[in-house]
Structures are given as C-alpha cells and as structure tokens.
C-alpha cells in the first residue's frame, strides 16, 4: 500500500482532470439544471467517459475493462469532484461494477461487465431502503417460484437510478441476503425519479412481485454479503475522493477570493481570523487526501483493515467537504448565498455526496464498532 502513484495512474489522473475540466466545468451542471434536463447529466459526456475507458476502471480486462482498481476509480472521482461532474459513474462504474464483479456468476460477468465498461447500458446498485444509509436493513424479499423467483420491496435513494437499465438489488432469500440482477423494464418494477438538492436525480425502485428467472440470482448468503460490502466500501472511498476534489476546489476559489476581495480598505486575506481558519481547513483537507487514498489503496491491496480506512475516509471527507464549502460561503459573504455564484453548487453536492453511503456521523459510529468500542 503506497501513496506513490504508478506512471499509469498518474496519467489517468492528469487525463481525467484535463478532460473533465474542459468538457464538464461547473457551468455544465448549471446548464443541465436550468434547462431542466430530465437525466440530470449529459449522455454525450457519458459516451466520452466511456471512450476514455473510465467506465471500465473497475472491470477486469477480460471483460472489457481497464482494471485500474479502486485507486484508479478514486482518481476519476476526485477529478469529477473538482468540477461537480454529474453522471451515473458512481452507480454504474463503481457500485454496480464491483457488485457484479464480486458477486455475479461467470455468466453475469460475461454479460454485464462489458456493457458497463462500454457505457452501452447503465447499471445501479439498489441497496438502501431507509432514509438514512443502512444497507443491513433489508425488507425487500424474494420467494422461490419454480426455477425462478418473485421479488418485492422498495429500494430507495439510488443515485441516477432513474437512468439505470438494470439494477443489482439486495433482498432477503431464505433468511439470507441475496443479490439479484433486475431489468428496469421488468414487469412490476418501476422507478420514481426525485430531484435532489445537488441538481441531480435519485430514484426509488419499487418492486411489485417481479418475476425473475433463475439466472437473475447473482449470489446469496456470505458471498452476497461480501460482494455487497465490497461495492459499498469502494463506493465510499470513491465518494471520499470526490468530496476531496470538490472540497479542494471550493477552497482554492476561497483562497483566490481572499486574495483579491477588499473590505475596510484591506484585502480580506490579511485578516488573521480568516487566515487561521483557512490554515485549519487546509490541514483538514490534507488529512482527507491521505485518508481517501489510504482507503482506496487498502481496497486494492485487499488488507483486512480496509473497512476501517474507508470509514475514516468517508467520515473525514464528509466533514471536511462540508467545512470547505460552508467556509467558502461565509468568506464570500452575501454573494456566496446567491445562485449566480458557483459556491452554492459545491455546498449542495458536498451535502449529497456526504450523505450517500453514510455521513460523517454514521461512519464515526461505524469506526468505533470496527475498532471494538
């Protein structure tokens, strides 16, 4: 586990930053919002990301991916955070990809992973059912029906779930967790898109006695739990990287503002009260960076302490991301409150990305559990 990026990783990082800064600056999110784009993201950008190979970052080469691992996915996520890129990357290329990679049968992998990598279809993980992240609380359930199953339940808050062609769904089967692959168009399945604070969409997925054939079952019991956990942990680490990218960018904007804005005949960056807060925030972001990449590297290394690092990373990234954006608003002052400035977009995304897959409080509590207290 090392903080040094390989040459390939460094190239990926640079390419991601460059591509996304050019193709999808913050103004793009604003445009999508203002034109009330029903997807909440650009299909064209999605194709572009597919062409860059990024949608297969967590897909093994044998299934059409580039197999760059969690660190690779984190580098793309960080770049996405920098300009608040809206896309189903987290849902499809991270959560669903890992769930299928770790929990699917060979047939599932062969069929679906290439489609994730090519961007041909969008997938999503349908895990949560509660308002607050709690993937262990599963009421959705499947009953055996001939060679197949019948599945019912309501899965909630699936980021970009409205655009998904298929879902990996966690549900109880014979008293155990199981993962199913469910087509969005299956009879009895319906999604309900909800506009969120960050100008993106999440969907609730209602499964009303959906009939599945036997091949829909990916795995069950311990194997399903492990695949689900792997997907969630990778998602958390990637969100940490995204929050880092967003937090650092908001901070950079704040520093620029502090250096030019005048009040009472002085540049406000000369006020020690603000200087010390900026220095503190810088330190928080430094810790966030270390934790996010430590977590990503631990996932790639498969070390047993990976969940601890993921919890620490998501907790810190949520808190630091929120602090960075809220300090930005406060230091920008009144204009920071206006929709005209971009800072509000950062604050809103920090809240949404902070909440998804567990916020700082959830993960601090979880870290305590992991560490035995």
């Amino acid at each position: 586990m090392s903080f040094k990026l390989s040459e390939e990783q460094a190239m990926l990082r640079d390419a991601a930053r460059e591509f996304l800064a050019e193709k999808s600056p913050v103004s793009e999110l604003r445009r999508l919002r203002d034109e009330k784009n029903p997807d909440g993201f650009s299909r064209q950008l999605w194709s572009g990301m597919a062409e860059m190979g990024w949608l297969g970052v967590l897909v093994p080469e044998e299934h059409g991916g580039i197999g760059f691992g969690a660190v690779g996915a984190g580098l793309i996520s960080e770049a996405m955070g920098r300009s608040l890129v809206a896309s189903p990357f987290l849902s499809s290329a991270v959560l669903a990809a890992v769930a299928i990679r770790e929990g699917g049968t060979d047939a599932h992998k062969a069929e679906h992973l290439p489609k994730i990598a090519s961007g041909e279809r969008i997938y999503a993980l349908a895990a949560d059912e509660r308002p607050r992240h709690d993937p262990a609380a599963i009421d959705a359930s499947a009953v055996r029906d001939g060679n197949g199953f019948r599945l019912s339940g309501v899965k909630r808050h699936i980021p970009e779930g409205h655009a998904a062609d298929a879902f990996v769904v966690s549900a109880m089967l014979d008293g155990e967790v199981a993962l199913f692959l469910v087509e969005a168009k299956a009879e009895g399945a319906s999604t309900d898109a909800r506009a969120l604070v960050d100008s993106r969409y999440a969907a609730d997925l209602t499964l009303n006695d959906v009939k599945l054939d036997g091949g829909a079952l990916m795995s069950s019991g311990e194997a399903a739990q492990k695949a689900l956990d792997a997907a969630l942990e990778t998602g958390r680490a990637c969100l940490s990287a995204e929050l880092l990218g967003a937090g650092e960018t908001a901070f950079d904007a704040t520093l620029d503002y502090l250096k030019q804005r005048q009040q009472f005949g002085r540049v406000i960056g000369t006020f020690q009260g603000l200087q010390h807060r900026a220095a503190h925030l810088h330190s928080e972001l430094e810790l966030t960076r270390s934790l996010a990449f430590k977590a990503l590297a631990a996932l790639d290394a498969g070390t047993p302490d990976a969940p601890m690092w993921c919890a620490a990373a998501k907790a810190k990234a949520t808190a630091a991301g929120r602090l960075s954006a809220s300090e930005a608003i406060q230091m920008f002052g009144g204009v920071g409150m206006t929709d005209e400035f971009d800072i509000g977009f950062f604050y809103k995304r920090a809240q949404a990305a902070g909440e998804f897959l567990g916020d700082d409080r959830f993960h601090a509590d979880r870290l305590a559990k992991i560490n035995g207290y």
Partner: protein
Amino acid sequence: MSDLDAFRAETRKWLEANCPPAMRKPAVTEADACWGGRNFKFQSKDQETWMRRMAERGWTVPTWPKEYGGGGLTKDEAAVLKQEMRRIGAREPLVSFGIWMLGPALLKYGNEAQKHEHLPRIARGEIRWCQGYSEPGAGSDLASLRTKGEDGGDHYVVTGQKVWTSYADEADMIFALVRTEPDAPKHEGISFLLIDMEWDGVSTKPIKLISGKSPFCETFFDGVKVPKANVVGKPGEGWSIAKYLLTHERTNIVSVDSGAFAGGDPKRVALKHVGAGDDGRLADGVLRADIARFEIDALGFFATLERVKAEADTGQGVGARASTLKYVGSELNKRRHELVMSASGADGLLWEGPEETDGMAARNWLRSRANSIEGGTTEVQLNIISKRVLGLPDA
C-alpha cells in the same frame, strides 16, 4: 385597581370583541402576515378587519405618539397589550420595515413634516417600505457605498445600485443611504433619503439564492430626482442614522423566542428517520452526541436570552451583548439545520416534488447559511465583542 389593571381589563374586553377568531390562529406561512402597502391583497376579510380596527386605535404601533397615528401607550401599557394579545393568540395585525426601522428613525431624526407625512401611513398599513443600505461589493464595509446623489438645487439626482433590498419588488417606498457629499470623509458624506419606488429611474430585480426564490432584490437608481425635503436628519448624517437603526435591529434579536425552533427539531427528526437501537436509544451514537451538545447550547442560548432580558429590565441594557446573542444564535441555527439534514438522511436532499413541503428541509438549511452573514457577519460580531465587550485593542 391600578391604572394598569384597568387598562388590562379594558384591553382584554376590546380584543375579545374586536379580534376576529380567524386572527387568533398562529400565522403559518409568510402569506399569513399583513404587510400593507398600495398593492397589498388581503388574504381574507378578517385579516383586513383586524388590521383596520387595530390601526384605528393606533395599536399597530402602540408606543408611537397619537399625533402620528400611534397608540400613545406607555412601555408598560404596550407590554400589557402584548400579553393580552398573546393570551388569545392574536396575530400581529401589521408587520413592516416601516414599523421596525423607518419609524424609529423618523421619530428620532425626522422633522415634523416628515413625521406627519409618513408615520400615519405606516401605522395604517398604507405605505410599504423597504431598506436600501447594502451595495454590490460593499459587504460588511457598509459605509463604502457608491450610490451617489448629485446636487440638483432643490433635489438630488440619485444614481447607483442597492442590493439585498428585501421585498423591494413589492414595496412602495425605500429609505436609502446615498453619498451626497463625495469629498467628505467616508462616513460623513452619506445622506438618508426617502424615495418613492414609482418615481422615474427606479427599478428592481429579484435575487435568486442557493435556496431558491427569495424576497431579496437588487434595486437600481438611474438619475432619480429626490427632493431635498426627503432627506432625513441633516445631509451627511445618514451614517449615524443607519448605525442607530442597526443597533435597534440587533437588539430585536432578543425578541426571538423558543418557537423559532419549531418544525425542525433535530432530535424529533432523528427519532423519526433513524429510529432507536437495541438499547432503546437513538441508534446512531455520534448523531446522538452531536444533538445532545446542540441541545445544551440551545438551552444555554435561550437561558441567556431570558437572562439578558431580565438584566435589561433592571436597567443594565442589552448594548453590545446583542452581538453575543447574534453570534451564538446564528451559528446555533446553522448547526440545527445541519443536524436536521444529517438526521433526515437522503430524504433531506429532496429539492422539489409534488408536495408543497417537498424540499423545505433542504431550502431552510441552505437559507440558514445566511444567518451568519446578514445583519452583520459572525466575524463582525466577534470583532464587536472583542473590542466593545472585552476591551481588546485595535490593531
């Protein structure tokens, strides 16, 4: 029976007879308040009746002198009126910046003609005022304003731009700070002008906030002719008047009451969204800890409000302590909303939906970020505390 007791009995009787039952229910939305003004549409006949009856007695502005449309009540009588209104849950008959801000300024600085012209119309809800202080780029450094009033003999020609003028798009008139003496020192060249929003050259544009639509506007003056008779106080005295009103405004914070937290109590939201664990307590221990610490500070804040009021009654006054309350109260409210969002989980992220309440949590949370900016930023309050309360020296 003392005079005050007699007044109470009489007031109770009058209110009983004159306050329509519909006006005894708490105001829920902004639309429930009566703001008055040329174009105001009463929400109901009862709302109109209640405002007019109260205005007739001068009780929309109970302590203003009768000659200016007020009730001429003593402080004690006004307190009794307030108590009796509370007793039956009577709404304020009229709310307005005219009552809260311009009125006090005119009473202290206005000339007789101005008082007679403007105060009664405020009292009767005929004219709705807005405030024109802030300017783009001025921020906390309010006195750095650039809207100018060029001397045109018996009038000023006003050109410039104001920002954060709440409800300017619905107001009839604006009281504005304008630089009329460009060569005077920064704080001495400003005048306090009364400007009709219908005059040529005045226009407004609403400001959209991160929380969505807002009552705030930008207001533009493009060569607006303002008669010198509309200068309050002396030309160049505007900054003193504005400072007086800012202190007045800050002191009003003390009238915030516990009801302010209704509708978004973190512990209730958490119990609903997170639920209890095996030990019967709120399941997320860290969220629980943060809410407990918030509640301790909230109890401390409300106890301090109570104490400051009690001490103000014994003549110690509120003074610079208002800055402590402003600082603590606004930071606390931001924390409250942040906790409500955390406790709501993904449900709190909803921005819009079929229900009218959809998106409320998120919008209220976003709106709360301005608490530590408007009415003097947290940084300004900390400066005031450190200098005026603690006596720390200037750099």
